[in-house]
């Protein structure tokens, strides 16, 4: 049953990553930027990759393969990780702007990588902690 919920969650999140990733690439290559979707070729590709991992997980879950859950877990991990990367980079940008006395606004940080990661984080807290705890024996 929980697999069903994960499946739906993964499908939705995966689709969001795919869609927004494509938008970011499109914005970078040609045209107009959508608000809250900054144009960036590379971030767009990264989002596509995360989406692909999540969707593969969903597909495998649907087929009843036992590695479906793992793809889902890794996809969520990637989602959260890149959200953290994006936030750190934004924070550093703020710091640099402060040092150089330049303007900076919080709106600069709002990229899909961040807000989609918030959704991913919810998923992580709900389902993934046990799985990854099995790994980390530092």
């Amino acid at each position: 049953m929980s697999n069903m919920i994960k499946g739906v969650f993964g499908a939705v999140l995966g689709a969001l990553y795919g869609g927004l990733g494509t938008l970011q690439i499109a914005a970078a290559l040609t045209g107009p930027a959508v608000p809250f979707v900054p144009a960036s070729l590379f971030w767009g590709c990264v989002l596509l990759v995360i989406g692909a991992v999540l969707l593969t997980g969903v597909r495998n879950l649907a087929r009843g393969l036992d590695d479906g859950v793992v793809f889902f877990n890794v996809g969520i991990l990637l989602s959260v990780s890149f959200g953290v990367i994006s936030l750190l980079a934004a924070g550093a940008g703020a710091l640099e702007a402060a040092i150089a006395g330049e303007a900076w606004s919080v709106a600069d940080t709002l990229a899909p990588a961040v807000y989609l990661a918030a959704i991913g984080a919810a998923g992580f807290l709900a389902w993934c902690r046990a799985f990854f705890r099995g790994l980390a024996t530092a």
Partner: protein
Amino acid sequence: MTGIRIALAGNPNVGKTTLFNALTGSRQHVGNWPGVTVEKKTGRVNRNGHAIEVIDLPGTYSLTAYSADEVVARDYILEEKPDVVVQVVDATNLERNLYLTTQLAELGVPIVIALNMADAAEATGCTIDRERLSALLAIPVVRTVGIRGEGLDDLLDAAIREAETSPYHEHTVGYGNDVEAMIASLVGVLAADKDLAERYPLRWLAARLLEGDENALAKVRESPVSSRVQDLLSAIDPDEYEATMADRRYDVIAAILPQVRTAGARGMNASEMVDRVVTDRYLGIPIFLALMWGTFELTFAVAAPFAALIEAGLAWLSAAVAGSIEPAWLASLVGDGLIGGVGSVLVFVPNIFILFLILSFLEDTGYLARAAFIMDRLMYAIGLPGKAFIPMLIGFGCNVPGIMAARTIEGEKDRLITILVNPFISCSARLPVYILFAGAFFGAAAGGVVFLLYVLGIAAAIGSAKLFRHTILPGESSPFIMEMPPYRLPTVWTSLLHMWSRGAMYVRKAGTIVFAGALVVWCLASFPFGVEYGSSASLAGALGHLLAPLVAPLGFDWKIAVALLFGFVAKEVVVGSLGVLYGTGEEGDALSMALLADPGLSAVTALALMVFVLLYTPCLATIATIRKETGSWRWTGFSVAYGLVLAWLLALIVGQIAPFFLGGA
């Protein structure tokens, strides 16, 4: 007995180095990467009035004569005769670890086993009966958890006890009647040579001779009993003996294990499952590329504020110096020469350290081992071994630690090719040149241009590798086999230490070579005495004019020639030199303006220049490293010459082709 020597031995990836650090408190490089500790490390610790010296031997799976690591470990124990050997054993991997134990036992030295990573084994529900194991092996077994520092005192106590009370003996695996008979005969022959009998445990020596061990044969060659030994050996097939003995060792281990261990939960564990995703044939490479891009993005972003601080600090320092030091020439030496030269390298310290921190983190989690595996097929197609890709990755930060990382590569030719092509990977030092010129001449497209330069660097490395493979260093790449350790979350401290050992090389480069080089540069720019700093009349200028004809076909003038010459010391210095030569300093846009205003420079020449800087000779620190790692002036010289020629040719080609794409200057 107050002074005791302990040798630490064990398989790679068992936490031996962590244990060593915990025992001795010294700084070491810790990685999930096998083969990293090639050099011996020593440390000290005191326990109960004993002054103990601990030697960290290279991690090895066995003790054959075939790899330098194994020979180093083996010879140390045989020749230096430490008081006791502590073998660090991975409790989650007993079977393979005990293989080494059987081989160590034959060396005759007292042994203590540190059953490390006990927490990980226990976490899977596995229990190990230490007393039983100890009784069966006739070796004390102590439970340790290196990363938490558990069991260290007990370990030291056991080691001291063994060192003081245990006689030098050989307990070992019984190899079956036939083999044992041969061993007995050989031992009988060898015993006649008193010298040999004193230096080496004869049973061990006999067993190695039967296996056809080169190193053992060499030891016996000079002996008076050599011919009798040869007689005995000529009748046998070493391969057969070696196979039989290996079988027997595993038989013994297989007999011991069930008596001492109750297995934990089996079935696919989390590490294995994650590997299914990470090495997936379609998603594996995209995931890797995404993580790599994330790494570089994060590095540049987070380093920026720190770099800005350092630049501001340097500017302040420079101004303070200019105002307060007399006489003027000294102020110039300190300000323009030292602060300018060394400063241009220091600005990159944040960049380097953060990149290495992230890479160390990835390495310590075990992910990089998977990445090497994923990239292996691609690397093989290029003619490089899969393990070569880590040195190349590190090269993006600084070529010096990148080249040193090539030590983990086994094949000599593979290693050499990896070292020779590493300088083409665009290190951080070249970035200021790109930023300056791309920024000045390409405006909004600057980012794209820099990216293309990085790609060109990678392409040059790949192309050169293929070229070398087909011409001067032919042969197949050694096959890829690497242990995949379980994923772990490294402690902050571990990653920081790991980062430091690599980053420190960069700082040392700034502190020594660049410092010296900056002095030389300053001298050339300031003499003959009284000349305007860095002008056409100075020695530097004279050199520039001398070299100008060589670079004229590329569209460079004497000022560029001088800057390139100085860049030989460290590529960061190119920008600083240009600042001096154009009289603008590096601050703000003054230099960019000056460059744009120069009629001799255009977008095309800027592009050619950037290509040249990308490819021409490695910087002085890198050259020193190549010399040290290859041990050969010949290859070092080749590297310099090849780089120059390639840079010159490609810059020329780019200069000719570019106008078509850029539509004229």
